[in-house]
Every structure is written in C-alpha cells, then in structure tokens.
C-alpha cells in the first residue's frame, strides 16, 4: 500500500515538474494585438516596464522622424507585388500606421471602392529626406513586429 502510494506521488511530482518546464501552448491573442497596436504595451502588461518604455520611445521616434522628413508609408498598389511587402513592414507600426493613413486619406479615402488599392501613404517623393523617411517608417514597423514576437516568447515562458 505504502509502496503504491509512493509510486503515485512520484508520478504526480514528475507531472508537475514537466508542467513547470513546458511553455504554455500559445500567447493570448489579445496581448499580441495590444503589443502590435501600441508599441511597448505588450511588455508593459507583462510587467517589463523599462523595456516597454524603451521600445515605445524607439518605435514612435522612428515613425515620427519618418513622417517629418516626408517619408511615405507602404500601401498596396496594383501590379507592384513589392508594395505588399512595404505595406506589411509599415503595418507593423500598429495604430501609428492606421492613424497616419486616416490623417492623409480620411475615412472615405481609405475605404474607397478600390480598397485595398488607391490609399495614399503620404510623404513627398521629391523631398530630400524621402528615402530616409521610408527607411525610418519601415524600420519602425519591423522593430514593432519583433517586439510582438518577443512578447509572445515572454508570455509562453520561453524568455524572461
């Protein structure tokens, strides 16, 4: 009797230990959405306050610099497959991207009959800082996508 109890307890202890080391199945989708939408919010929710502030400052600074030097946000264009990659990179900026598109196009401009085409990305192609601005906008979006992946890893217990 005592021996069988010991076996059962040992099996339970092993099960508990394996649960501790195994990461959770997936990160909460709402957390990832928050991390994407507002740069730094995912880390803030997870209690990584310093990283949250730094990531938010860096990504927002990159985005604002890109807009100020007349960079253009990536938007889909018919017959230009690479414009989708630019869109994906810029979409990483989350709410900043959406707000800028609304600012440039207005609600009717964004959801016109040609959606998803025909949306203006702002900026000025003949401005001195145009290419730099694009780089800042793409970089900001890609950095925020990396931040979302980092949040997913932390939420799953794979990183601290």
């Amino acid at each position, binding site marked *: 009797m005592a021996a069988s109890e010991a076996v059962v307890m040992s099996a339970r202890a092993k099960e508990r230990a394996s649960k501790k080391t195994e990461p959770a199945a997936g990160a909460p989708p709402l957390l990832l959405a928050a991390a994407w939408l507002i740069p730094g919010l995912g880390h803030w929710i997870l209690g990584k306050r*310093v*990283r949250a502030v*730094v*990531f938010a400052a*860096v*990504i927002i*600074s*990159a985005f604002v*610099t890109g807009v*100020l*030097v007349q960079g253009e946000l990536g938007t889909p264009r018919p017959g230009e497959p690479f414009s989708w990659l630019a869109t994906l990179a810029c979409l990483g900026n989350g709410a900043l991207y959406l707000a800028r598109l609304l600012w440039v196009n207005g609600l009717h401009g964004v959801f016109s009959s040609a959606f998803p085409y025909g949306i203006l990305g702002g900026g000025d192609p003949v*401005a*001195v*800082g145009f290419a*730099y601005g694009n*780089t*800042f906008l793409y*970089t900001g979006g890609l*950095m925020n996508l*990396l*931040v979302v992946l*980092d949040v997913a890893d932390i939420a799953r217990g794979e990183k*601290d």
Partner: protein
Amino acid sequence: MVVDHLLLMLWHALLVAVFFAFLWRRSPKDRGILFLKTFLIMVVGAIALGWLMYPFP
C-alpha cells in the same frame, strides 16, 4: 526640419542599436556592449561603404 544625411544616419543607427540592445540582452553591461558594437558597425560601415563607392559614377 533637419535633413542632414549624416545626422539622419546617426539617429537611425542610434535607434536601431538601442532597440537591439534591449531586445537581445538583459544586463546593463551586456546592453552597453551590444549597443556600442551595433552602433559603430552601422556608422563606420556606412561611411566606409560610402568611401568605397566614391570612385564610381
């Protein structure tokens, strides 16, 4: 608005270096080392590449 190319490049390198230092390292010392490495590689590399491209039309 400042559109000096060198300043914009330094600003971009600074942002990227700070970002990766905080994303990939945890201790302040390691962050400082990675920041310096990334920043210097980006800035010195860009200037060196600029000089290498100088003879070409």
